[in-house]
C-alpha cells in the first residue's frame, strides 16, 4: 500500500515532516509519499473532481485493476501474486 498525500491544510505540498506526521497519526508502516498537485492520484480519475480518499488497485507489474472506485477485500485477494 502507498499513501499519496497531495496537500496540507494550507494546500501546500507536504514536506517530509508532514508525511511523517501522517504516518505517525495513523500508525502507518507503508510508504507515505508527497503527491504534488494530485499528479499521480489524478491519473486514475475521470473528470475534474477527485473524491478522497481515492483508491487505485494495481496488480504485480503495476497493471491497473481498479481505478477511481472503492476497492474491496476480495479484489485485493484476487490479485495477490502467486
Amino acid at each position, binding site marked *: *500500500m*502507498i*499513501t*499519496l*498525500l*497531495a*496537500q*496540507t*491544510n494550507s494546500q501546500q505540498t*507536504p514536506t*517530509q515532516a*508532514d*508525511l*511523517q506526521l*501522517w*504516518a505517525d497519526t495513523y500508525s502507518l*508502516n*507503508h*510508504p*507515505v*509519499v*508527497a*503527491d504534488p498537485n*494530485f*499528479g*499521480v*492520484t489524478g*491519473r*486514475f480519475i475521470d473528470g475534474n473532481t*477527485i473524491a*478522497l*480518499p*481515492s*483508491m*487505485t*488497485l*494495481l*496488480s*504485480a*507489474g*503495476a*497493471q*491497473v*485493476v*481498479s*481505478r477511481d472506485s472503492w*476497492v474491496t477485500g476480495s479484489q*485485493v485477494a484476487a*490479485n*495477490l*501474486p502467486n
Partner: protein
Amino acid sequence: MRSAVFGVFALALGGCSPPPGGVDDPVTQDSDTATATDTGSVDPNLDSDGDGLTDAEEATLGTDPQVADTDLDGWDDGDEVDGHTDPNSATDHPYTGGWAMGACRDDLVASGNGVGQVTADFALLDQHGDTVRLHDFCDREVLLVGAAFW
C-alpha cells in the same frame, strides 16, 4: 680417536639445514608452466571486506573488495545486491523504511492508466526522506490511496 669418528658420523646422519636458497622442490621451482606458487592459492570464498560478497563477485560487479560500502551510501555492497540496488551508486540503495524492492524494478514498460494497462513509474518523497518509485514494487500488488490534510 673412536669417539671423534663417531661424532663426525653422527653429524652426517643428523638433520641437515637446507642449503642457502632453499630446497629444490619441483612444485616451487620456476618453470614455464603455472605453478601453485606462481598463481598463489586463492580462496574462492574470500570476502576481504566482510560485506557478504566474495572478492571474485566484487570483481565482476566492479565494486571494491577492500571496502564494504563501495558507494558510501550507508549500505554494504552485499546488502545492496540482495536488495536489488546498485552498489556502485550512492543514490540507489534500499529504502530506509524497509520496503523491499523487486528484481523486476527496471523491467516494466508503461502503457497507460486504464484498466489492464501498466501505469507509469513515479518518484516521490516519502516520510523517511527517500524517493519512492512505484516500479520498485513490481513484484507485488499495490493499493494506491489518495489523501490530503484538511
